[in-house]
């Protein structure tokens, strides 16, 4: 039953692509359906129940509206299409103070505007979540520094981890090599070429983008991308999807690609 729902969701996604250019869309849809059939047939059940699927949990921000709901399905679709990860196409919404966030080790937070501060109980729960293995990916959809969401989010981090500084990623960070080899943080725009975040014991439980990555993924109900991507156009959008894949792989494998067995291959390909 769950499998059927998943397949329906994917078929719907594929079928909703741009009706104005019908042939390419149909061809694409057929290709996707064919790939699903190829992938599904020999493998039987795809996961050990819904709980074994990667489910993206969206963090509800007090007084704010989640403005990138249309980015989740395309993102999950690309993850499933490109990797062996088994993911749930439907996000769940969680609150910072609720212990149910521990069911979902990956949470997404987006926003454009300033938001009111979390209360102490929420911060305490969130701190515990991040410290013990959770990952929060925050995407600034406004893509402006020192203003709006950026200002509030930094204030929130300061209260979450007052003893830790906000760091910027370097080029060899696992976020840029967990699946695809990337050189910068591609998004709807490029405000900064790096992520910022917090590091605890070699792991980044908080990853913050100011480039509106989710904006590059978002599609309307007809399959059209909602926002143009600049300055790199569609190539940059592709890179944004790759970054989305890397983000999830980073959450699931952390520094796997820094294992010695991978390093020579990565260095060779980086040349």
């Amino acid at each position, binding site marked *: 039953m769950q499998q059927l729902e998943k397949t329906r969701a994917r078929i719907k996604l594929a079928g909703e692509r741009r009706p104005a250019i019908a042939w390419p869309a149909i061809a694409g849809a057929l290709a996707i359906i064919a790939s699903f059939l190829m992938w599904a047939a020999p493998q039987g059940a795809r996961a*050990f129940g819904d709980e*074994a699927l990667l489910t993206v949990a969206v963090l509800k921000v007090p007084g704010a509206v989640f403005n990138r709901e249309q980015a989740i399905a395309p993102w999950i679709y690309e993850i499933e299409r*490109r990797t062996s990860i088994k993911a749930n196409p439907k996000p769940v919404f969680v609150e910072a103070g609720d212990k149910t966030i*521990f069911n979902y*080790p990956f949470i997404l937070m987006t926003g454009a505007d300033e938001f009111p501060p979390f209360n102490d109980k929420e911060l305490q729960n969130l701190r*515990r979540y991040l410290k013990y293995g959770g990952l929060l990916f925050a995407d600034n959809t406004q893509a402006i520094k020192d203003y709006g969401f950026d200002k509030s989010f930094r204030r929130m981090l300061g209260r979450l981890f007052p003893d830790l500084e906000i760091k910027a990623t370097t080029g060899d960070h696992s976020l840029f090599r967990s699946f695809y080899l990337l050189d910068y943080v591609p998004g709807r725009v490029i405000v900064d070429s790096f992520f910022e975040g917090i590091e605890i014991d070699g792991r980044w439980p908080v990853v913050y983008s100011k480039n509106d990555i989710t904006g590059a993924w978002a599609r309307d109900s007809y399959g059209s991308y909602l926002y143009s991507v600049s300055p790199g156009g569609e190539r940059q959008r592709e890179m944004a999807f790759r970054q989305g894949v890397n983000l999830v792989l980073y959450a*699931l*494998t952390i520094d796997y690609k820094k294992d010695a*067995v*991978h390093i020579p291959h990565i260095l060779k390909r980086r040349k």
Partner: protein
Amino acid sequence: MLKFLSLLGVDIADYNHWELFSQAGWYSASAAFFALFVGAVILWFGYRSTDRLKKRPLRRLLIVALRSAAIIAALVVIFEPALRLGKVSKMSSSIAVLIDNSQSMALGKPARYVRAVEYIADHNAEVRELAAKFNLDFYLLGSQISRIDPHTLTKAPVNAESTDYLEAFSALALEYPTDTLKGALLISDGVDNGAAGEARREGRIDPALIEKLPHPLHVMLAGETAGVIDAAITEVIADSYGFVRNTFKVTVRVDLKGVEATSVPLVLKRGGSVVTSRDIAIIPGQQSYDVTLEFKPDRVGRFIFSVELPGFAGESIRENNRKMFSMEVIRDKIRVLQVVGHPSWDERFLRRLLKQDPNIDLISFFILRTRYDDNTIPKEELSLIPFPDVEIFDEKLHTFDLLILQNFDYRPYFGNSRSGGVTAGRLLDNIRRFVVEFGGGLVMIGGDESFSEGGYARTPIEEVLPVKLFAGQSFGSGYQDLTPFKMQLTDAGKNHPVTRLAFNPEQNEKKWKTLPELYGTNIVRGLAPDAVVLGTHPTLRAGADPLPVLAVREVGEGRVLSLLADSSWRWDFLNVGEGGSNREYINFWRNAIRWLIRNPETKLIEVGTDRPVYHLGAKATIRAEVSERDYRPVTEGSLDMTIYREGDDAPVERVIEAKIVEGSYIKEFKPTAPGYYRVTASAKGQTGFLGSDETIFEVSAGTVEFSEPGPDVGYLKRLAAETGGTFNFITDNPDMPDFETEDRYRLAAKMTLPLWDNWFILFFLVTLLGAEWFIRRRSGLR
């Protein structure tokens, strides 16, 4: 003074000496000087105050005299003077003659000890002369000293098992506590192998020994210095344990005397096989060599090694050409190979745990993309590498201690077009052999691509798994159940080291009950016959029994664990979210790893001795502790034990089917020959064969004296020089050394007579002051 005291009525018959001293605790010469100065100042001003009596000098003198007497009386009270009476007697001084009677003194022709005794006999007149001037005491010196009548020296045994100068001279110092020892004569070969022996070998004198040496210590070397041939291993310096596949260093201290060669081979052997060797290049004039041998142990276990020098013609002793040592080879790090079918939270939390453990060297392979995923991106833009199935499972598997197959379906990868003709069957059999033959640990973690779903039924892997699988491809959720459940601990699980989260079984069960639910389980056909189930599903069954969720099994040399779920990460993160901690998850997996790699703590049978080294003639106590597979002590079982002596083919003792009482068996064994002994034991319990273990111990014949026959000329010279004594070779037949005579006295029978603590002084003081006042007033002074 004594006469004066006798006039005063003091009985002085017992005293011939007196001295004046102060009883005041604060007394010091500077304080006395200061008081006298103050007294003098007071007197001066007192004298000046009587200027008006210039014309009456006698009266003036009388006042000043009274004042002076009063000040003196006051000072007497302040300084509390006393007389100490005593009897001083002349002391007789002593000389000690120490003759080494350790086993090495029996070496030589004639024996070194015989030379020493003959020397004493030949110099009888000088000895008598010395005895006339001093108390001449003779001692035998070995690990201690013992006084001996010089007339019985020829009958004394030359059998002391060691030579310990520090112990001997410490004891000698106690023999003469009043510093009457005027010096000593030591006749020895200089091979101090006691507490100060380490410093001797380094060419110096132990500072503790320097403190105890008598002054002067005249030394005579009792030993031949020419013609001695001996190659000796005096010491082996090696750690008691080393790490497998890591360089291990053994430093061997070698003494080569009179060896006519340019180089001497030093060989390190294990059980008769040469492990490594090194040639020692002989440097003219150099006797001692520190040689470091290096090798890499290739197996985990406890081994006996020997270092050996060849024998040389004319060698005084051959026993010291070989020395043995034992060593435990352990893992430096547990090498874990984690192969994961696809990334998941279960993989992520387990990897984090393994990565954070400093004792684990983790190699992970995750299938990040299958052939069914988008393969159109050029590989240069990806960080992916091909899954090296053949390299891992055909070439490198034996370098790991533990293999974790986590929700991994081998079929797309094993024996495919990239495998270069290596079949899936071969790789699967390699895994089986890794467990059964090489003692590796195997974990299979559940999921939709694992156990029956992973196609492992009827493969070599199923042969070693604790669970029996369903054959054939399953679609849908045929061999899975997706409902959440709480794993229930079995009776075995309450005691087993894998599931022991608390020492007390009840508390352990309680802890398990508080852990979050697992989501979904693999369904299996049943259990392998000798598997132990630690956790079961609360409702589902495999045949007549509850469905196993966590089961373990010992197969051949290795151990296997099956966890039929892919959500154990919930015991970590969810438990934290519910206000608990992740300790239970961490401890569970650490326990599991320890058990899987046969950590000594998790052995079912453990054999040991109460001491690592016994002296020949002593009884060795060998103890075996035996547990059933659920780690409860064996109540009905038997044990076979065999004791071998290193180098002998036949065992020296064998015990067959001895009864195990409450999990223990104790064997007392009296070795009849020195050497290294190996004990092997195997046990059976209610569930059949439980395994085997072995231990080794050493039986020493006490030949430390022969490990280095000496003599050590340099050491003896240093001792003599340190104390101002002389050094001579006994073979030169020198005169007996001279010792300076000096009269010494002893103070005894003391008595203290306080001079201030009486009424007379007080009365005298008051009278003087009163008289001074009276005369002063009568003279018109204030």
